[in-house]
């Protein structure tokens, strides 16, 4: 079973269109949604969660249309956590115990201790990192099969980000567990994800296994004329320099004579976004 199946998702606002997004997150995998601010990552996530209505298309989560009961199986972390500022960890634990049918106090307490979160301090007095850790503790304490995380690492220091990434990797050790995570900190996603989906200006530019992307797309350095002679579909993005032009190309579509070097997901994202602009 797939954790998420999106088919032809279309949603329009004033001046923005999420255009025919189709992607599949297989169960047991981690998919990273990459895109610049305003690309449509949060709109996609909100549509999956049923927070936004969409004009066209279909979304299946854990094999079902979104419904309230299904949300017991989904752990959600939003970029702004959304917990009442006056409450403390104990209060929040009490509320969640009565909201989620499969809530585990043991898991919650374990994560609270692991994250060294103070039990009696007001949530409003927490740092951004502590707030995010509490949101992750909640998401992981009701036996969720799928985590949906919208920019969970933005605004956090590298140490906390690394800690969170380790916890997410641990979550997917169970092969039924899947994660959809959006971020514009591409290096985090590169460490974490099996699949990368790249959204740019409301369009899905690519959705592929990370290892396949890193194998398929390569850097070449050549003159601009040489690059212009290549198959148009081969060039995913280029940067014209004073002495040579650097391009990211589809290795399968260029002559073998070119010397290539590896790319990172961040390079791919930046070059493709610039090419589209």
């Amino acid at each position, binding site marked *: 079973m797939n954790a998420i199946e999106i088919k032809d998702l279309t949603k329009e606002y004033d001046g923005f269109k999420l255009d025919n997004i189709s992607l599949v997150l297989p169960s047991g995998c981690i998919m990273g949604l990459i895109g610049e601010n305003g690309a449509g990552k949060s709109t996609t996530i*909100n549509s999956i*969660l*049923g*927070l*936004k*209505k969409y004009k066209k298309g279909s979304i299946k989560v854990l094999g079902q249309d979104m419904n*309230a*009961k*299904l*949300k*017991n199986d*989904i752990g*959600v972390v*939003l970029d*702004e*956590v*959304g*917990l*009442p*500022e*006056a*409450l403390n960890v104990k*209060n929040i634990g*009490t*509320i*969640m*115990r*009565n*909201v*989620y*049918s499969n809530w585990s106090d043991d898991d919650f307490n374990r994560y609270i201790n692991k994250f060294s979160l103070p039990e009696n301090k007001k949530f*409003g007095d927490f740092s951004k990192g502590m707030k995010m850790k509490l949101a992750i503790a909640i998401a992981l304490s009701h036996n969720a099969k799928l985590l949906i995380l919208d920019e969970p690492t933005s605004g956090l220091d590298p140490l906390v980000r690394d800690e969170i990434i380790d916890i997410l990797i641990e979550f997917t050790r169970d092969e039924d567990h899947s994660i959809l995570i959006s971020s514009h900190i591409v290096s985090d996603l590169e460490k974490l994800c099996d699949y990368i989906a790249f959204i740019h200006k409301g369009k899905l530019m690519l959705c592929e296994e990370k290892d396949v992307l890193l194998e398929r797309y390569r850097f070449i350095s050549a003159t601009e004329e040489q690059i212009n002679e290549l198959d148009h579909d081969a060039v995913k993005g280029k940067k014209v320099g004073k002495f040579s032009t650097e391009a990211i190309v589809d290795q399968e579509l260029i002559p073998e004579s070119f010397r290539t070097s590896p790319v990172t997901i961040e390079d791919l994202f930046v070059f493709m976004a610039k090419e589209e602009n």
Partner: protein
Amino acid sequence: MKGLLLKESLVMIKNNKASLLIIPIFAVIGIINKQMMFILLIPVLLAMLPLGTMTYDEISRWNFYVQCMPVEKKRIVSSKYLTVVILALAGAFIVGCIKLIYDIAAGETDHRVIIMMIITAFTLGLLVPCISIPLNLKFGTAKGRIFYLIFTGIICGVLPSMFLSDDKNFTVKLAKLTGHFSVFSIISVAAVLVLLAVSWTISSMIYEHKEI
């Protein structure tokens, strides 16, 4: 629902400790001044608490987060109304108790007046939230407050002119009605319960179609 009600009460208590302390002060001042109408500020004060919670929900973005939880939208709306009803009942109970204590101390007990005050307190406790909640859900709490003022302004502007023109003997009819204790009681409670049902229905419809 239990989790949502717990959240409503925890947020209300933690954010309104000072407001809750005012209740016994109002009671004491009302009794000392022999001003029972002053006591009726208590249900009005209690009615404001769930509206304040709506503002806190917006600020903390709880209204966004709660929709990611396994809770039907109708239940989210219902939890607000249930809180309002519980507080209106609490307000009516407090007012009834204070009036009873006052009457016993004064040596004259009129159960009709006590019941009338309880009904008035219950009505006051429901009136403001029943108008405000749908407006807050539709426009947000900041704009909702302005629309509430416009709405009540229109009502307060229209009703007095109806009374003053009085070509249909409205005032006389109203005086007769209020003079008839049991009819007045039944009509008041029925009217406020109808208002509650209409308000809840409108709020549920607004929230169901609302995109955050």
